[in-house]
Structure formats: C-alpha cells, structure tokens
C-alpha cells in the first residue's frame, strides 16, 4: 500500500465508490421501462478510473463482473484526445468496442474536474430488442453476428451536452420496441448522470491527484485480498475440461479446456485446447470470457471480494483466438452470457477444485426452459418464459445444492415466478412443479433435484427451445460427488403425439402439454460419507429412493421407512 494513504480515508473511499455504483443501480431499477431490469436485474453499473480500469461494480448481474473495463478502454482508444465534459458514449460491439454481446449496451459518461478527466460512470444493460433475426434479441438461428441485431462501435451519443438526435433516430429505427429502448436508454443515461455527479463530488473533496492515489489504493487492496486467496491454492498446474455438445443446430464434440497455473502470487488461466468457434450463437467475446473467469474466481473464494479489476491484477487470462472463448468475426454470440459462460465457469471451478478441494463447488445444471409465444383469448400476443421449470444448483461443503434456482451466471439471482400469477397472465393451466426423485447428484452434500414441471398450453403457440440442459447430465460432481440426472423436454399434442424437443430450435404447435424434467445439480464429496440422518430425510421427503439410498449412499432404510437400519448401513458402508 502507498504509505501516504490514510487508512480511514481509504476505507471511506472504497465504501463511497460502492455506494455510488449502487445508487446508479437503484436509479436504474426505479426509472427503466422494461421489466427485464427490475425483474431479472439484467444490468450492471460500474465506475472506471481515468485509465479505464474498473474501480467499482458493487451492483449488477454476476456475469458482468469485471468486463466493463474493456468498454471504457475502447472509448479511450477510439476517442483519445476528443473526450469532453458532458459527452456520453454508447457501444455494444463485442468485436470492436469492448462489448460482451450485442444486446448489452454500455452507456459511459466521463467525469471531469477542472478540465481533467478523472473517471467514468457507466451502465451496461440488456435491451428489450435490437433488431436482428428474432424478436427479443435471442436468434437461435443466427450463424453470423449480422443476424443478431445492430452493431454499435464506440459512439458519442451526447456531444458536449447535446444529444445527437440523428443517431437517436437511427437507434429507434433498429428496434421492434422503440418505446422500451427509448425509455431504457434514458434511464441508463439518467443513472450515469447521478453517478457522475456523486463521483465529481468525491474527486473534488479529495482533489484529483489524491483521488487517483486513493483509487489506486482501492485496486491495490483488492489485489492483496486476492493474493491471499491465491495463497490458499496448491501450487502447480491443474487441467480441466467442460464439454460443449451442441452448436445450436446439431450435436458436436467440443470442449472448454482450462490449464490453471498456480504460482507464488499469480494465477494463469489458459484456455489453450479449447475447441474452435462454432456455427451457432454460443461463441464468446473477450469481455464475456474474462467476466466469466472473474465470476468463477470470485464465487469460488469470498462473496465480499471487491468486484474491481484490482482483484484480478494477479490473474493472467489467455484466450486463444478463433476458439469458443474468443471467436473471430463474424461468428454469432448472443447466447454467450449464458452458454458458454456457464461452461467457462464450470471449467474454471473444476480446475480450482483440484487446487483447493474443500472449497470446490459441484456443477450447477443447465436450463431447459422453452419460451412460448402465442395469442391470448383477447387476441393480444403474449410471450411466456417456462422458467418455473428451473435447473438445480450443485453442492458445496456444508450445504446441499439448491433444488430450483436461476442460471449459474446469475448465481441464482433470477426470481422464479409464482405459477398462480402465470396462470392469470397466460392461457395456460399448471399441473405440476415438484421436486424430482433420484435426480440429485449424490454426494456428502448432494446436488439439487431439479423439477418435474408440467403445464397445459390452451392455444397454438411458437416454442423457442433453449434446452442446453436436455440430454446427458449438465452438472458435475466435485471431490468425490457425482453428477445429477440429465434433463428432458416433451410436448404432448392433442392427438396424443409426443414430441421430444431438441436443445435449440423454433417450432409451432397446436394446443399441447409442455413437460420439462429439469436436470439435477452435482454432489460434493463422497456420498458414502453423507450423514445417514440426512439420507433418511431425503428418502422420507421422496427426493432419494430406498434403492438409491443403499446404492449411492450406502444407507439402509428400515422397513418402517422412518429410521436408518444402522447395522445394515454399517455393512453397506464397509464394502
């Protein structure tokens, strides 16, 4: 640490930066139009210093962690010497402008004190629609980025306080939902104004020179925190792979490969050996892959690790060009913040788990939900996400996996709907949302079960399938635990015909019953060391069958079904 920095002021500056990024988030939630922000929190607010280094991202969706600096550095590169007070920048392109994928637009507002650039207040948010081949930004048929929506290089959206109306009209012309885009962009711009005002106050109080020193102090502290994390890992080289078995069109045999080198105070995360980029829209960008690695590291260690780029200063991420983790244009990539981000997190977790087994996290299963769109009885169109049939979390030391939880890349930050609400909103009737039996990955701490979800859809509808978790198990076991069961999606039509849905694709069907068996999460630790009373509880709860209790856990349940047969259990576990 810079010896001249007062430790109390440093702590105050750290808290204040985090508070400012939170404030931007609260303003965003309160003023944005699309429910995607208030409901799914699919945005992040962050602050960068004058060099474009991310110094705070206290709020936001985990898969945005640590990616914001690429956007700000692209601004500094493209507008060197031409950044002025009251400018506001906009960008989204993952290939040229530090974007992660096209739907996430970044608004960045430079902060000046006495004519000197001191910081940027920024907001990255998923737009409701940006043109492209499918409404709602996800075009699973895309084979080029040009099919996915409008590409924006670094643009000055507001120049010295004057909005470029021609540009604004261009943006609204390239969306199916101009009102939502207009409102959400204004909310983003408004939130960065609040952030910039608060940042300016902070820098004025400290003076620009001292502020820069304290910002650097905040980064250095995070670096020291993370070096403490690295010190817990066993030194050496750890390798892992995570399969990628679909290119969104057909089965493929591909993988994310990670070689983790743990040094004294340094980590190298090398993706050499990762498969080439694929035809469908799962390819990742540098910003997104870096974010996924940061998210994997931060979630592996400590939840309160500062989410700034200082925390990862001692981490060297190598992303080979032309692969799934760093595609060349014009590969499509809209899906990447979910898949392959999920696979990247899994691969990094697997490597870390070898270097520090007691901290290992078993894999979370992948979503299978389809999106159903059709007409309500009043003739109005509806779009329904079948995400109440959510996937499961994996086990870690001390806790079983969550039975149903939002995507891994949100760390479960997505709130699942009440079925009563959906029955009220859509022409459907639910039959079931129940935990599955024998689907949870066995372990000392077992995975989550996933669910058996069934709903009647009364009217003809388009089904957009995004069932990455359909088929073979999509979680993994850690430290001796096992993977959970795979997922399955079926549609039963009026005539009794049963359709087995593929992972990706769009199809139209008449009235049908949609059923999803969401996949189970992975288990942590040897299942034969699970506390027999926990196994008994799972059997009583109907999550684990009597047979699986004996087979997977070595626990014999007495004939009354209400107690453990201690003698037989001891015998089973002795073998």
């Amino acid at each position: 640490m810079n010896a001249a920095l007062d430790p109390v002021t440093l702590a105050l500056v750290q808290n204040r930066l985090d508070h400012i990024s939170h404030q931007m988030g609260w303003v965003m939630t309160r003023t944005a139009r699309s429910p995607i922000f208030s409901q799914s929190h699919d945005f992040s607010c962050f602050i960068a210093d004058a060099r474009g280094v991310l110094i705070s991202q206290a709020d936001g969706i985990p898969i945005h962690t640590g990616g914001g600096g690429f956007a700000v550095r692209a601004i500094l590169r493209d507008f060197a010497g031409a950044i002025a007070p009251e400018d506001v920048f906009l960008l989204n392109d993952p290939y040229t402008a530090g974007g992660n994928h096209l739907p996430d637009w970044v608004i960045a507002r430079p902060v000046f004190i006495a004519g000197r650039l001191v910081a940027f207040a920024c907001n990255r948010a998923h737009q409701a629609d940006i043109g492209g081949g499918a409404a709602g930004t996800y075009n699973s048929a895309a084979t080029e980025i040009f099919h996915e929506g409008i590409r924006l290089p670094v643009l000055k959206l507001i120049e010295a306080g004057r909005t470029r109306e021609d540009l604004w009209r261009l943006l609204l012309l390239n969306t199916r939902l101009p009102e939502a885009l207009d409102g959400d962009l204004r909310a983003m711009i408004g939130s960065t104004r609040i952030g910039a005002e608060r940042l300016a106050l902070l820098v004025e109080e400290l003076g620009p020179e001292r502020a820069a020193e304290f910002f650097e102090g905040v980064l250095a502290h995070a670096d020291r925190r993370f070096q403490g994390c690295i010190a817990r890992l066993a030194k050496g080289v750890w390798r892992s792979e995570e399969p990628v078995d679909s290119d969104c069109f057909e089965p493929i045999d591909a993988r994310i490969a990670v070689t983790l080198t743990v040094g004294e105070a340094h980590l190298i995360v090398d993706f050499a050996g990762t498969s080439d980029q694929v035809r469908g829209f799962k390819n990742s960008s540098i910003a997104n892959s870096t974010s996924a690695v940061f998210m994997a590291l931060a979630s592996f260690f400590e939840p309160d690790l500062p989410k700034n780029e200082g925390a990862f200063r001692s981490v060297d991420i190598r992303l080979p060009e032309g692969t799934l983790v760093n595609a060349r244009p014009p590969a499509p990539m809209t899906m990447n913040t979910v898949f392959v981000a999920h696979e990247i997190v899994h691969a990094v977790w697997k490597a870390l788990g070898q270097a520090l087994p007691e901290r290992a996290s078993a894999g979370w299963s992948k979503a299978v939900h389809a999106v159903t769109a059709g007409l309500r009885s009043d003739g109005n169109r509806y779009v329904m996400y079948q995400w109440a049939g959510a996937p499961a979390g994996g086990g870690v030391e001390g806790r079983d996996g969550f039975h149903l939880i939002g995507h891994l890349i949100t760390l479960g930050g997505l709130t699942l709907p009440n079925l009563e609400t959906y029955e009220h909103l859509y022409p459907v009737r639910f039959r079931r949302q129940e935990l599955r039996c024998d689907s949870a990955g066995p372990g000392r701490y077992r995975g989550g079960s996933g669910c058996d979800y069934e709903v009647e859809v009364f009217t003809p509808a388009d089904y957009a399938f995004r069932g990455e978790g359909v088929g073979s198990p999509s979680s993994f076991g850690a430290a001796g635990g096992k993977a959970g069961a795979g997922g399955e999606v079926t549609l039963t039509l009026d005539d009794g015909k049963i359709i087995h849905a593929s992972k990706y694709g769009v199809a139209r069907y008449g009235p049908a019953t949609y059923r999803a068996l969401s996949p189970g999460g992975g288990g942590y630790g040897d299942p034969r060391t699970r506390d027999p009373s926990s196994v008994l509880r799972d059997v009583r709860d109907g999550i684990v069958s009597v047979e699986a209790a004996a087979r997977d856990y070595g626990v014999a349940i007495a004939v009354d079904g209400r107690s453990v047969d201690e003698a037989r259990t001891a015998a089973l576990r002795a073998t």
Partner: protein
Amino acid sequence: MNDVPPQLVAPWRVGIDVGGTFTDMVLRDSAGAVRIFKAPSVPADPSQGVLDVLRLAARELDLPLSALLRNCALLVHGSTVATNTILEKKGAKVGMLTTEGFRDSLEIRRGIRENQWDHRAPFPPVLAPRYLRLPVRGRIAADGSELAPLVSEDVAKAGAIFAAEGVESVAICLFNSFLDGKHERQASEALGKTWAGRWTSLSSDIVPIMGEYERGSTAVVNAYIAPKVTSYLAALDEQLRQLGLPRSLLLLQSNGGAVSVDEVANRPVMLVLSGPAAGVGALKGCAASPDDANFISMEIGGTSCDVMVMAKGDVPVTDQLVIEGYHLATPSVEIHTVGAGGGTIAWVDSAGLLHVGPQGAGAWPGPAAYGLGGENPTVTDAQLVLGRLRPGPLAGGAVTLDHGLARGAIETKLAQPLGLSVEDAAAGVIRLLEQNLLHAVERLSIERGHNPIHFTLVAAGGAGPMHGTAVARALGCKRVLLPRAAGAFCAMGMLQSDVRQDYMQVFIAELDKVDRAAFEAGFAELETKAHAALVRQGFADSGTIQRELDLRYEGQQWSLRVALHANLFDPVAIRRSFEAEHQRLFGHIQPGGRLDITALRVVGCGRLDWSPAASRPPQPKPPAPRQRRPVWIDPRHGWQNVPVYDGGDLRPGCKLAGPLLVEERTTTAFVGPNDHLEIDAADDFLVHLGAVA
C-alpha cells in the same frame, strides 16, 4: 426528568417494548406527564421482563403494582416473542396441505436468496418438511371457478399421517385459494376427523394474495409460531388482568397499528415487526400536525439501525416482509435495516482495510468496555475513547463502561494493524459508521423517490442522538430532531399508535371498465370484516374505514397503492393520484395508458386519542453545564473541551450553541460546532444545523 416527580393524574397509558437487552416502559398520564423505565430483558421468558419493568415502575412511583395497573386505561405491548420463536427455531411441528402437484413451492422459495454472491450460504431450514407437505386433489381455476371438487378422503389420509407424526399445527395453502377459500375451509373441517390438533392456519384467511409461495409461506410461519405465541400472549394478558389491568392489553403489529390479543390470536404472524413498527406512532408524536409529519427516522440500537420515511404522516405499508430468510405477505411498514449500532464491531480485513459492521457484539458479550469478555472493539468503545460517552454506569447501572478496556481493544485490533493512534482509529470507526448510516438513508430516499432535504431527520434509539447531527449535515437537512426519550422511542410510539387492521382481496379489472356492482360488493365484504373487528375492540362508532386500490399500468409487474378520497370511486381522481405516485417513484408516466386494478384494500382504524406531552415551565436563562470534558468533534475540529449538560436541566425554550453534549436518562446527544440546540415545545431536542466550516 430528575425534577420533582410530578403528581400523576389517573388514568394513564403505558407502552412496553421488549428489546434484545432492555425492556422499555413509557407511561403517560392524563395530564401528559411522561415517565420512562428500563429493566433488563429476560430472553428465556420475555413476560418476566414485562413484569419486572412494571414492578420497577411501581416501586419508583411509590405505588402498589395493582394500583399502577388498575389505573392503566391502555397497555400497548411490542412483543418480540413471534420474532424470537422464528429466530430460535422453537416453533411447532408443522404439517401442510397443498394442492396435488404444488407441494414444493415452500421449499423452492422462488429461488430467492438474500446475497446472490454468497452461494455457499444454505437456505434457512424449511419449516414444514416435504414428508409433511401432503397433496390433496381438487382444483380452483384461474377465474375462481371450481375445476374439481376437494377430495376429502385425501385430507383425511393426510390428517392420519399428521396424527401419527405428532404434527402440532397445520397450514393449508391450496392453489388459487386467494380467489375462493372454500376448499381450504372444507379441508380444515375434514382434517378434524383424523387429526385432533387445534391449530390450523388457512392461507386464504390470513393473506389472500395472489402467489402461492408467499401466501403459503405466510401460512406456514403462522402455523409454526401460533401455538407458542398465542399461548404466551394469552397467559401474559391473563396475568396482567389478575394483577389489576382493567382491559386486555393491545399488541403492536407489523403494520404499525395496535390490535387486541383476541383479534391476533389466530394470526400471530402479524406481530413479526412488533417493536420497530412502533416508529410510526413515535414519529406521529413528533409532528405538530400530520401534514407537517415529513420525517426520515434512524432508530439506532445496539446492533442495527432501522430507517423509515414518513411523508405527510404516512409510512408506506407493503405486503413484503422477510424475517430470517422467510417470506411473509403480511401488511408491514416499510423499514430498511442495516447492521449499524452501538455494538457494531470494527475490524481490519486480511488485506489491511478498516470495516465497521455488519456484525455486532450483541447484548452478550457486548462492547469491550462492558467487561463481559468482549474483545472486539465496537462503536460504543470508540465513543468512550473519544470522550463522547462517560465511563462508569450506563442505563441506570445495568452495565458499566470501562475506558481502559475500550482503549485496549481499539489499540490491539485496529490502531496497531492500521498504524494509527488509538484516537484516530476510534475517530475512523465513527466516521465509517456514520457513512453507513448516511448510505442507508440515501438508499431508502432514492428508492422511494424522496429528496431528504425536504425532511426532518429524527435520530432515535439509544445511540441515535450521538450520530444525528453528522448524518443530517451530510444529507443536507437543515435540522435534526433528537427525541428526549430516544432510548425508549418504540415504547413511546406504542402509546401513540392507533388500532389498525388491513384487509385485502385480489380484484382484477380495468379501472375504466370496472363492474361497479362487483367492485362495491368486494369492498362491502372487506368493510364488514373491518367494521366487525373495530366493534369487537370497542370502536363501535368511532372507527374509520379507508378504501384503497392497488393499480398498475397494463403489463406491469408491480402495483401502486392509491387511497380513494372520501372513499369515493372517481376514476379521474384515482388516475391522477396514481400518476403522481408513479412519477415520483419511477420518473415517468404513460399518459392515457390503460390502468388495471389488481386488489381492493380496506384499512380499519380506531383512534386512540392521546394527550400531548405536558408543557414544562420554560427556561428563564440557560442552565450551566454539569461538567466540561475533552471530546473529539470531527476531522476538521479535532478535540475540544466541550460542555456537558444534564438533560433534566434543559426545558422548552432553552437555546444553546454547540459543540455540546447532553446526557439523558436513555441516551447521550451530541451537538456539533456551529449547530444550535433548541428544546422544542414537545420538550425534545431540535438541532438547527450550522454551516460545516
């Protein structure tokens, strides 16, 4: 308060608030004289703390306990027994009946976790295990019609299992029961054939909201706490009645209103926020009139700070409450709580950064200065080192503050690792705590769309008056109110709370095309319930009924609540009120956008008129300070020799210039340089903030 004890004028009113450390009692007599008493809480049996503080009061007032109670026209009680039953996981064995196919929503919890990043933290234990959540056939459709009748054989079968398993309390939450509770009522009846327990909690009866998770979770928590809480309250009431209390005690609910023991017996889940919700009544008492009641309050206790915004006398009541990770849809005043209080621990992380909170030292061992074995430095220790608190007995001698122990903890745990002097480290702790408080207030203000400059900050709780001026200054407020009874703020609020019960019914219709007959019938049903409850509580003629609507633009996820002016249905006026609220909260409106009603609400209110505090004789001239001592002011002013006043010496009209300290019975107030202290007409400390320089 150390004047000649005023002769009390019967009858009087008593508020008793059970806190983690102390049980507070406030008595106000018919002439408006106020007396405050504090006794240690008895966590194992809170009623003991209640009786202890009553006995203490009787002793100090030189009255027999029976006379104290006999002359008590009203006893309002804030009980932590509901909350503690949840905290300590000491509730009943609960079974649950659900519609077939939907028995797991309680355990799925909509996937909501408190801290997204902390994925290693498990969910709190599910209060009704899956093997006791039993499915029954029968289905209500989304339009409220019956798709399939309830299969009572399924209920009987479940009841037999409950009986065999020793289930003590049953929650019933059937799919779509918010539209029609008949299946739940039938199930409750059928259950009696095979299960002999007496406690059933029907979700459609407790909170008929749309959303099976929150409605079911509320019913389950109610079932979990009902046997213990209801028995406890009935026993306490019975005991007080036998000791002379002329009418049943009232309890403070999460909605900020009081209710009789009988009314709440079947729904004790309404009591979860019992203590802090009394802040509503306390704030009302701070205002000359409701229109002037624009307050942001920070109630700072030992471990946490509760922030509340009151605009024009109104604190928003929502359907969302989370307690220990359990979701409740009970009507609850909106309170934002942060881990910042006197007992909050300061610590240095592995990479050398100073933090304050969120962990606290609790009542035991408490701050290092208590000498009860606590080694971690807390905010209280820092105050002691900085001369703001006086060493020696605190809160009437219940604890003693040891200056050496406070210094030692700050020295070893903070000053040495940070390379600072003990005083600078202590000052850092205070600055970080006050930053936390500021951020908490800013958060609630931003989220509710209020500018704090237009509000008076009220800094209450035992530790509040120490931090009020610093936080108010940082917020840009012009003045801050430090209640004289800050350390018994909630007990004071209980004296000033009205009886209130909230009723709601899901009702979905377009505002401009609503079926008036159905609309009126819905309201009439709710009003009948509200009126009957008011009559039972003695408000046959004096109760008021307020109609409210939940409204949203078509397609929105959340509704806003709008009161009907004079209970009249005037769509134009309703739209105008909605738009004003929407503009304030969200920064925009949709002119002419379709408005949908989502619920009808009725608030039944019985006013418990309270006499304002007696005016004390004005101060002829400023009193002399009792002492001067060196006190650390702030980073700019450093240490100064500061006058210390005894609160009892300061009377209405008295004006003093800061810096100064005022020591009161339940708190110590700090007033900064350039600030001016005025004792207002209500005998509280009003501080006019000066410029920073």
